[in-house]
């Protein structure tokens, strides 16, 4: 198994090994510290990409904005003035590194700029409104899907025979349907044909978000379809991975040895489940980005009021600050989730702590 070694940092980011004060850090703490340094590095890389990539493409957003705001009929003089004032407001008249530093400083102050399409609303305000919806949709579906998928996969590997034989092809087919395609099918089936669930939005237009029972049940109804469509596809994907890992683990030498010493199946299954689970944790952290991406597009299908739908609107209206703010928030969330997964992994896998010890 190749998992568990974790990422190796560039040597320059490692502290010297002999600590002068003689205090020994616990291996787990060292591991977390290493991860933390790694994620800080990625965070800055992400900031840089978020700032730099849009500027890589010729043509600048401001002229697009001006053209859009001016609509038609404005004289070129007015356009020029508008253009210059925007250039100044967005700091585009400075060299790129000044702009970048300016951008980083702003991000650290929690300022993601002003939306073009909803001028003068701040990007922060829009995203702060959208984020809870996205989190409420994604965190439970991904977590639950991961857990259920792993249990199903392990069962399929253990039971073999009929259970596995019928389940596997179905699961493979379900998991190869892209998130948003599955979402469309469910939406059409339950929302249009059967007409038992709402066809879009996070809650009924007539209601305003409050913590009343009426609103919550309404929101739950709207939640069900997007949640289910994510859950089922995630379960499928995870089950397939876990089935493979479990079959591999069930054929290992340690399982045979334990059986030959008379250890019961119940205990052996526990060993296998835990060991097959470890690569699944790493797998989750790696595929998280793809899952989140799929889930964001699922939001669009249901016009769910999360980041995905806002991103879609922002792209259609070429609202660059909102696009960049959205992508940044997504990236940071994915990084944070990955860091959390690494923390958990370090607790679960004893080899992590030892591989640090050996160094």
């Amino acid at each position, binding site marked *: 198994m190749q998992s568990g070694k974790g990422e190796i940092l560039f040597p320059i980011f490692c502290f010297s090994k002999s600590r002068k004060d003689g205090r020994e850090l616990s291996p787990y703490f060292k591991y977390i510290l290493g991860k933390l340094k790694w994620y800080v590095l990625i965070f800055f890389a992400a900031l840089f990409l978020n700032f730099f990539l849009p500027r890589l493409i010729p043509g600048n957003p401001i002229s697009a904005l001006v053209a859009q705001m001016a609509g038609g009929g404005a004289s070129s003089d007015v356009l020029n003035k508008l253009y210059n004032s925007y250039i100044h407001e967005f700091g585009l008249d400075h060299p790129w590194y000044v702009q970048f530093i300016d951008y980083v400083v702003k991000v650290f102050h929690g300022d993601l700029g002003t939306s073009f399409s909803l001028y003068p609303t701040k990007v922060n305000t829009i995203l702060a409104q959208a984020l809870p919806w996205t989190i409420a949709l994604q965190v439970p579906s991904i977590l639950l899907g991961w857990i259920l998928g792993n249990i199903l996969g392990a069962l399929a590997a253990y039971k073999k025979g009929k259970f596995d034989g019928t389940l596997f092809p179905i699961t493979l087919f379900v998991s190869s349907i892209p998130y948003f395609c599955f979402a469309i099918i469910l939406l059409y089936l339950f929302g249009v044909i059967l007409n038992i669930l709402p066809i879009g939005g996070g809650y009924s237009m007539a209601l305003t978000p409050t913590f009343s029972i009426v609103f919550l049940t309404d929101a739950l109804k709207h939640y069900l379809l997007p949640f289910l469509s994510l859950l089922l596809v995630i379960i499928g994907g995870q089950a397939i991975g876990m089935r493979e890992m479990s079959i591999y683990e069930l054929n*290992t*030498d*340690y399982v*045979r*040895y*334990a*059986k*030959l*010493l*008379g*250890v*019961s199946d119940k*205990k052996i299954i526990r*060993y296998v489940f*835990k*060991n097959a689970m*470890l690569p699944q944790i790493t797998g989750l952290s790696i595929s998280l980005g793809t899952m989140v991406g799929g889930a964001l597009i699922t939001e669009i299908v249901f016009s769910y009021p999360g980041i995905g739908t806002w991103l879609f609107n922002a792209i259609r209206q070429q609202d660059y600050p909102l696009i960049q703010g959205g992508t940044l928030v997504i990236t940071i969330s994915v990084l944070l989730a990955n860091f959390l997964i690494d923390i958990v992994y370090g607790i679960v*896998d*004893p*080899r992590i702590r*030892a591989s640090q010890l050996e160094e």
Partner: protein
Amino acid sequence: MKVKKLVAEVENLKAYYKVKGRILKAVDGVSLGLRDGEVLGIAGESGCGKSTLAMSLSGLFLPPLKYYGGKIKLKDIEISKMDRKLLRKNVLGKKISFIPQSAMNALNPTLKIRNFVIDVLKEHEPELSEEEIIDRVEERFDSLSLSKRVINSYPFELSGGMKQRVITVISTLMNPEILLADEPTSALDVSSQHQIIKLIKTLLERRIVKSVVFITHELPLLRHIADRIAIMYAGQIVERGTTSQIIFSPLHPYTKMLMSSIITPEKGMKGKELPVVSGSPPNLYEIVAGCRFAERCPYVTEECKINEIKFHKIGDREVRCLHPLTERNGINAAK
């Protein structure tokens, strides 16, 4: 030499692999007797069925391996047809124990030795508390001069040789009557090999285990540990005898070939004629009529290819060969 009483008897054991509708006859009618206090060596090339035999002797036939017939008698208990749950609870680890081929991966990588030992012992003696178990294990480790610290380690923190010794101790914690050792030394360096052999001898001397079946592909290795040796070829035993008989005056041409396969002959072997027999073991899916070794045998005659070869008694020795190497070795058949 006084013949000691038998602790286990195997009669015409047949265990085959069933893979995709085809049957591979890995253990095809093996009979053995295991005496109290002895080490029985079983030697043969890889693919001759010796590891399968080791597994089968435990009575636990893990798929795709299937039991096809014969008996494994442990004193009065017949274990080959025993209910699997009872077998696990009452026999495995307790009466018959096992040292697997590759110690490197035989321990669950994410489980401390301590917890594994608790799991194993609780299975057989549920009334024991964890403290009692650990006390017992520490005592055992101590008495066999293994560091107690090892108990609190994870497998990956131990060296290969140490892992193999730990496994040997774990396998014998419940004082089993029979220890099945399947190539316990083949993955180890020379000094670790010696340590394992010493450990197994100590276990026998202290009567922690009563007898050992030691399986290896290196026949000469058995000189240092086995009392008697059985040579296995193509799923069958082809020759049986005492260690010195087998090693210094083999009767079966295959036994001789196994001895010659070593690079540096040991003392007492020098100067003897060592014909090198090439080729590989036969296909166990389709077994030919007649002697299974015929294809590779330098002394083969037409007669060999007709009927299945039965055991011939030559003095106190037994061999499945129509042309045993008696004259060539100067052994008097009548003796």
